[in-house]
């Protein structure tokens, strides 16, 4: 970012066209793309690479900067969602302003979309890259907005994931507000007895966490409380905590949402539900956890149990698998066998998903006398209730589809997890909800605990069905992400924000209403009032720029001039 570079009129630009292995190279002729742009004004380097994001290519880019005195890059590869930060990092290491990198997406927009038309894909790529070059020519150096952050985290949800995250955050010196809607911490696990696979008792685990929380003065617990509003900017959010009519506002640097799940509640009549002798898995667990000795239900001894799996999961609108229920049901049957070794148990399942180590419980349950019967996806068992008697018929695929009839004393509906009804919080935090109703991360591998809402992280079963230990693990992972952000003490915010030319602004105020983030206000001294935009509050969405009748607002990084140049480039870049 030398002054010399910034002073030059025609910037020196390098263009890199990625083959992404075969992802792009199999369809787009990257050589032709290079050829099409290599002689454009400002382009001093143009070449293709197998993986532009690979370390070796990054090194070449850095070498090019030194040799060719580059001012910026155009990288034609995948979506900027994937690699913006990668290439900005390269620029930074090379001494080029990171905001003078333009990424052009020729994978999602060319090769992947036009696999049937390589020529068309190539020609489209040429236009897009030409447009990218035109935009890059007008790029100005920008510098991240550095904002001090608040070393405090709000954890919303006091189940095991949230409690554990709170403890971990306190352990690395961050303050925590732990906010739970219910009157007590503990969530689902706080009501459970022994859990698979280690036999840890849920109530004891929660008790242990409560003690650990007590021991840490940095954790402030709010029970019977909800988060009702959020404002502020990255690293410094104001949230409102409401508890029995009391509203407190606190400033936090990050927010961890760990609001858990609801259990699927079958409709009356679904597999006989409603009969006292048809229970859900959580109800069955209470039956097991709250008494000792042979199992009794509705005043009668239970000598035989039938489990029907996938109730409420993998069917209808709930297309997802609830993950934990196969293992939980098998584990419950082991507990039942312990209570009464003579109890007969029948498992009616579709695919038995005791994944990983849980497979051992599956083997154990068969050794203890459980029978497994498999029904087809489209042929579930029938439950009929005739007064005292439950009659259950199933076509068992493991015995060549033979129809078997059972008369169990108790039917356990192996119910899964459903997204928690939580519209208020989802609205207050603008949480992203997936098609299955659970909260969505940005990317399951790249950014698994972050959401598209800056500073809001997710953990536990609010993201997807998880076991207790898995929820605790993801709670800790979210704590790690929050700590990674806040322990630096400073956040770097994107400088691609809107700015007002105060000389041109006539203070009409048209723009104020257009900002979804409330970042614009009118300020003035003496007689003149002009719009000012808080850089830390602006998200760079560009909603305000077209509203200004005087064209006094421009979005840095996407200025009107750049957008016009991009369009001109698209029109000019014709296939040869």
């Amino acid at each position: 970012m030398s002054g010399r570079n910034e002073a030059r009129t025609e910037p020196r630009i390098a263009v890199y066209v990625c083959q992404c292995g075969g992802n792009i190279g199999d369809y787009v002729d990257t050589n032709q793309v290079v050829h099409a742009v290599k002689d454009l004004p400002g382009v001093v380097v143009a070449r293709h690479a197998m993986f532009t994001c690979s370390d070796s290519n990054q090194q070449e880019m850095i070498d090019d900067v030194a040799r060719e005195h580059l001012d910026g890059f155009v990288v034609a590869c995948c979506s900027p969602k994937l690699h913006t930060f990668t290439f900005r990092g390269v620029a930074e290491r090379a001494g080029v302003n990171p905001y003078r990198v333009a990424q052009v997406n020729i994978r999602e927009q060319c090769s992947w979309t036009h696999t049937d038309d390589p020529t068309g894909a190539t020609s489209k790529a040429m236009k897009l890259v030409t447009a990218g070059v035109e935009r890059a020519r007008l790029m100005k150096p920008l510098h991240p907005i550095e904002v001090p952050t608040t070393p405090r985290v709000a954890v919303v949800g006091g189940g095991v994931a949230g409690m554990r995250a709170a403890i971990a955050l306190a352990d690395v010196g961050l303050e925590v507000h732990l906010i739970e809607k219910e009157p007590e911490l503990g969530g689902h696990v706080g009501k459970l007895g022994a859990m698979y696979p280690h036999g840890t008792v849920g109530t004891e685990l929660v008790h242990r966490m409560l003690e650990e929380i007590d021991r840490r003065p940095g954790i402030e617990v709010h029970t019977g409380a909800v988060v009702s509003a959020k404002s502020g900017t990255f690293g410094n959010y104001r949230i409102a905590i409401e508890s029995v009519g009391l509203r407190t506002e606190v400033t936090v640097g990050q927010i961890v949402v760990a609001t858990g799940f609801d259990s699927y509640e079958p409709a009356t009549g679904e597999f006989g539900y409603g009969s006292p002798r048809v229970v859900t898995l959580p109800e069955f667990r209470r039956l097991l956890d709250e008494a000792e000795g042979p199992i009794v239900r509705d005043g009668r001894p239970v000598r035989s149990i039938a489990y029907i799996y996938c109730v409420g999961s993998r069917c209808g609108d709930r297309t997802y698998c609830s993950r934990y229920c196969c293992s939980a049901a098998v584990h419950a049957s082991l507990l039942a066998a312990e209570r009464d070794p003579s109890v007969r148990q029948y498992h009616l399942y579709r695919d038995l998903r005791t994944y990983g180590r849980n497979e051992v419980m599956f083997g154990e349950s068969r050794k203890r006398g459980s029978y497994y019967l498999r029904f087809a996806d489209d042929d579930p068992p029938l439950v009929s209730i005739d007064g005292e008697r439950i009659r259950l018929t199933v076509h068992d695929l493991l015995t060549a589809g033979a129809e078997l009839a059972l008369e169990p004393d108790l039917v356990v509906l192996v119910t899964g997890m459903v997204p928690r009804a939580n519209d208020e919080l989802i609205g207050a935090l603008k949480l992203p909800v997936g098609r299955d109703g659970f909260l969505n991360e940005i990317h399951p591998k790249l950014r698994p605990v972050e959401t598209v809402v800056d500073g809001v992280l997710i953990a536990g079963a609010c993201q997807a069905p998880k076991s207790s230990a898995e929820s605790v693990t993801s709670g800790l992972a979210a704590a790690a992400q929050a700590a990674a952000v806040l322990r630096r003490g400073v956040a770097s915010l994107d400088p691609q924000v809107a700015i007002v030319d105060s000389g041109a602004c006539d203070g009409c105020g048209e723009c104020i209403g257009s900002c979804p983030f409330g970042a614009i206000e009118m300020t003035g001294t003496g007689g003149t009032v002009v719009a000012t935009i808080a850089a830390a509050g602006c998200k760079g969405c560009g909603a305000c720029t077209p509203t200004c009748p005087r064209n006094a607002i421009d979005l840095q990084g996407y200025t009107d001039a750049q957008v016009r140049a991009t369009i001109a480039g698209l029109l000019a870049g014709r296939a040869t």
Partner: protein
Amino acid sequence: MDYDALVVGRGIGGMESALKLGDMGYRVLVVEKEASVGGRMVLLSKVFPTLDCASCIATPKMAATAHHPNVTVLTDSEVEAVSSDGGGRFLVRVHTRPRFVDLAACTGCRQCEQACTVAVPDEWNGEMVSRRAAYIAYPQAIPQKALIERRGTSPCTDACPAGIRAHGYVSLVRSGLYEEAFQLLLEATPLAATLGAACYAPCETVCTRGELEGPVAIRRLKRFVAERHYATADGPGVTPGEPNGRRVAIVGSGPAGLTAAWQLARAGYGVRVFEAGPEPGGFLRQAIPAYRLPAELLDQDVANVTALGVEITTNSPIADVAALKVEGYDAVLLATGTPESRPLGIPGEDLEGVQAGVAFLRDVRAGHPPDLAGKRVVVVGGGNVAMDSARTAIRLGASETRVAYRRGREEMPAHRAELNDALTEGADLELLVAPVQVIGDADRRVAALRCRRIELGEPDDTGRRRPVPVPGSEFDIECDVVIAAVGLTTAVETFAGALLGAPPAGPVDERTLQSVIPWLFAAGDLVTGPSDIARAVGQGRQAAQAIDRWLCGERRGLATVPDPLGVVDRAEVLARQKSHSRRESGLRPVNVTPRPRDFDQLEPPIGEEDARAAAGRCLDCGVCSECGQCLPACPANAIDLSMRGNDRSLEVGAVVLATGYRIFPADLKPQYGHGRFANVITGLQMERLLAPTRPYTSVLRPSDGKIPMRIAYVMCTGSRDESVGNPLCSKFCCMYSLKQNQLIMGVLRFAEVTVHYIDIRAVGKGYEEFFEQSKGMGVNFVKGRVAEIRETPEANLILRYEDVDHGTLAEAEYDLVVLAVGVQPNQDLGQLLAAQGVAFDDRAYVDEVDEDYRPTATSVPGIFVAGALSGPRDIPESILHAGAAAIQVAAHLESLKAPA
């Protein structure tokens, strides 16, 4: 503390823990065994359920890890010791293996790879294609720098007393680089053809291929290389170094003397060789029969030496060594060998018809053979000279040739091949006899050899059993000629008088071969006693180096043998020959017949085609052959074969173990035929076939490169299977198989894909929907285990399987079968960790002792685990797990800071 945290392993888990800790401000050291950060993920095709390109997810993490200001990465390194300091910190020792490439200098240009003559299965491509010994791991590897894989010195190279890089010239011949092979030989000795014809080839004795169909014909390849050079080129093709003005006299022109002369002349010395006999070559010329070493071959080798300006003065026995010094030679090397036979030391040795072995052989080679036609010959002795004498006697027409030896056949010092050939040619053995007297007739001519029977007693110093005469067991062997070949001796007395009255050569320093008189050196059999050509060559090289160092103070210009790595273990070499194909030698054998009558060379030369085929049998034991081609190829001069590993001792505050899992070795399910049937591949191999950096242009089956149209998946290979000792579910095989199904259907639009499964375990976010998507694309799911796989003559595969849904046993034919292999615990660090008290569960995974509250914590405070080392985990789970480890490491580090 050197680092706040040590992360062992650079897979996705290790990288995530390191990045999170680095972001939190801790200094992290990542130690990685392989040559790149990245782990397995970067080698995958795409990842489920998002179908993102695996490289696109992994490479930014790899680059971020490599460039993070708080993260230091050591590749090619292993943690060798971890010990707690008792206060929550750890002392660790990290060993870094040499890459043999200077990372700072290497530009990743891959010239070395192109020059490399060794190809081995590419482990980064599922061993479906090959890579070079000098290589860059894979296109996205970090660092993008070459390394040279050297597992050790190959046994052949290690066994060569002449220091010839046998593996090197074999791999050069295999690559058709014959002149380069010849030059590699010349680095050791000018006697390429001689050794190629007459060396006893200890290299072949230890050749690993010898444990299969027989050793590589290493020696004959050498002769091929030499003869090819001599047929096409004038002179050795070597330019000697600038004359350095120093002169060395060498007494004796046997293998030691000629080799020393060659080495010194190459380095710029003025060298003159004095030979007592009429022609140069010493023992090579005088004693080795022409059927083993024709004179023309030796002449060509000697011409190499004279081409460098070495003068060989024949008929010049040296009586006065000191006079040479006075003449102006800066150093004198005695290499006069052991030219004389030892006498029998029994009565009657002066009778006519008694001959010394060496004198007999010398007369024959000089063109003055004694008349043995119809005569009965007894050769006394059991060494190589005895065999040469017997075989020569047969050729001269002896009616009867007996070899009398005082011990048993096993104890005979002669080379086995020599003994066997002598027997084939018609020599008889008279074992366990000792000559007592030569009996003469009235004309004082030999009539019989009186011998005594011998019994073998206790072993003597040489380990051989001591011969003990049996009293009263004398008997006579009637004969006309007795040849004494009971040992060789030096002839130093011929000039000893000139030197202080004592045998000047002995003792010399074993290493420098320098005598008590500084300018006087000695080498060869004169020093070692009777040995063989290769040892004498080695001595000649050693003497040349010593003389050079003594005269010039440093190694200048002399080709030096790189410090040897340890010899590679042959068992390990055999163990890695997973798909070893049988390869017979294919060379015409040596033509040994009974009762030969001429001295024609017995061994036919081999042609180019045979030579390349023979060299192709090499198993590349040490991987790198030390052929040296990469050295001049590297434009950055970055290759350094003398590079050695180093150890670092470090103090760290916490340890994260992230060494991941092992893939189940599919050959442990022999009924599925992996390794035997070319078209049975593993899921990981299919990943490579589908990856953007795939080895072929499409999904092709290995046997014939055809596009497979019927593809079967065998789920739970090595998982949920007590018969292989793994009852656990491996968790991700269902999902990667579903992903591959979809990718295959994208690449091969008309392929039919069938999945033989037990339960489809699609248990993560979006996984069930992904399963439905596969079903929707037309993947055929059959519930039931596969019992066995058979191969048809077309290399198709017949699966015998249970179809549970229809209650039948059935068979079906496929073009390609993919085994959905699962995971096994990685026990690389097992012992090291167990010694520190890290607990393992009953399946040998690291035990997370408090998983419900402190997942990732091991039984040792401060040691954490991230990823699949503690149990099967897919990528998203490993990443979350690694994050959980990172925050707890941070808590541990903060507790170290807090006042106690």
